[in-house]
C-alpha cells in the first residue's frame, strides 16, 4: 500500500511537471499579470490539453501525498519526492530537450539531498 502510494505521488507528479511545461511552452510566454490578462490566460489554459492533464495529474499526486501522510509520517513520504528532482532533470533533458550542463546536474542533485535532509531532520 505504501509503495503504491509512493508510486502514485512520484509518477503523476513527474508527468504533471513535464506536461505543464510542454503545454505552457506551446501556449507562449506569459508576461502580462494584470487581472484581465490572467483571466484570459486561464481561459486559454482550460482549452490546452497538456495543461489540463497536467493539473489533473498534479491533483492525483497531491491526494496520494495526503493519503500517505495519513498512514505514515513525513520521514517516509518525502525521500521519494527528493529523488524526483534528479528524475525530472533527466526527463527535461530527453523529453523537453533542455540543455543541461554540469551546473544543472550538480544543482539538482544537491537540492535533492538538501530536501532529503531538511525533511528528515525534523
Amino acid at each position: 500500500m505504501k509503495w503504491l502510494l509512493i508510486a502514485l505521488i512520484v509518477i503523476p507528479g513527474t508527468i504533471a511537471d513535464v506536461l505543464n511545461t510542454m503545454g505552457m511552452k506551446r501556449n507562449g510566454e506569459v508576461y502580462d499579470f494584470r487581472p484581465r490578462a490572467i483571466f484570459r490566460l486561464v481561459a486559454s489554459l482550460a482549452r490546452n490539453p497538456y495543461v489540463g492533464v497536467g493539473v489533473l495529474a498534479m491533483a492525483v499526486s497531491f491526494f496520494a501525498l495526503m493519503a500517505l501522510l495519513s498512514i505514515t509520517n513525513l520521514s517516509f513520504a518525502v525521500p521519494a519526492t527528493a529523488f524526483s528532482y534528479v528524475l525530472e532533470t533527466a526527463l527535461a533533458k530527453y523529453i523537453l530537450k533542455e540543455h543541461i550542463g554540469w551546473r544543472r546536474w550538480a544543482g539538482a542533485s544537491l537540492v535533492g539531498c538538501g530536501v532529503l535532509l531538511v525533511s528528515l531532520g525534523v
Partner: protein
Amino acid sequence: MLQRMPLDRWSQVTIYRNRLFCSIDLPHEGGLPRLQIPAKAAWQHPESLRKWLLMACDQADSGELQLTHRIPAKTLGSRRSTATLAASVLKKQSQPLRLKTRTVIALLVTSNVLGNFTLSRGLHEVGRLVSFSPWPYIHAFVNPLVVLGVLLLIVWLISQLSLLSRVDLSYVLPVTSVSYVLTALMGEFLLHEPVSTERWIGIGLIGLGVSLVVRTLPRTAPMLHKSGDLPCEAAR
C-alpha cells in the same frame, strides 16, 4: 540589464540584455513580440538597430510582426507611418503589468509557503476530513484560513505555470525548492521550533544547489510558439 530606447516620439522598445543576447520587446497590438539578437551587434550599431526596428514596425499590419533574429545592419527603413501605428497602439493599450522572472519566483515561493501553512492550520482547526458526505468539505470552506490557503495556492499554481512558460523545468524545480528553506526558517523564527543540525546542513545544500542553477541560462528549451520559430529568450 534593462534599457529603454525611444523608437520615435510616441513609443519605445524595452531591451533586456545579458552577456550573450539581448531581447527586445516591441510595442504592438495583442501582446509583446520578443526577439533575440546578438548583444554585440545591437550595442555596436544602436542607430541601425533603431532604424531596423522602425522598419519592422512599419511593415507589420495589426497581425504579428515577422522578424528574423539577424539585424541587417545596413538596412535603413523609412519612418513615415510608424508614428501613427505606434500612437494608435499606445492609445488602445495600457501598459501591461510585467513581472520579472525573479519576481515571479519570489511570488511562487511565498505563496507556496504561506498557502501550505495557512491551509494546514485551517484544516487542523476544521478537524478530520474523511467522509463521503459533502457537508464536512463545505463546512471547511467556511473557515477563513482554509479560504486564504486555497487562494494562495491558486496564486502559486498560476505563477508556477507562467514561470514554466518562460524558463526551463530543470531551472524552475531547483530554484523553487527555496520554499523548503523558507518553511524551515519560518518554523525556527515564527513558531519557535528549533532547527536541527541535519536541517541546517540540508538548508546549506539547497542554497548551494540553487546558487549553481541560477548561474545557468534560464531558458535553453526550443521555442514552440504559435507565431513560428522566433528565437526567444526569457528576461532575467
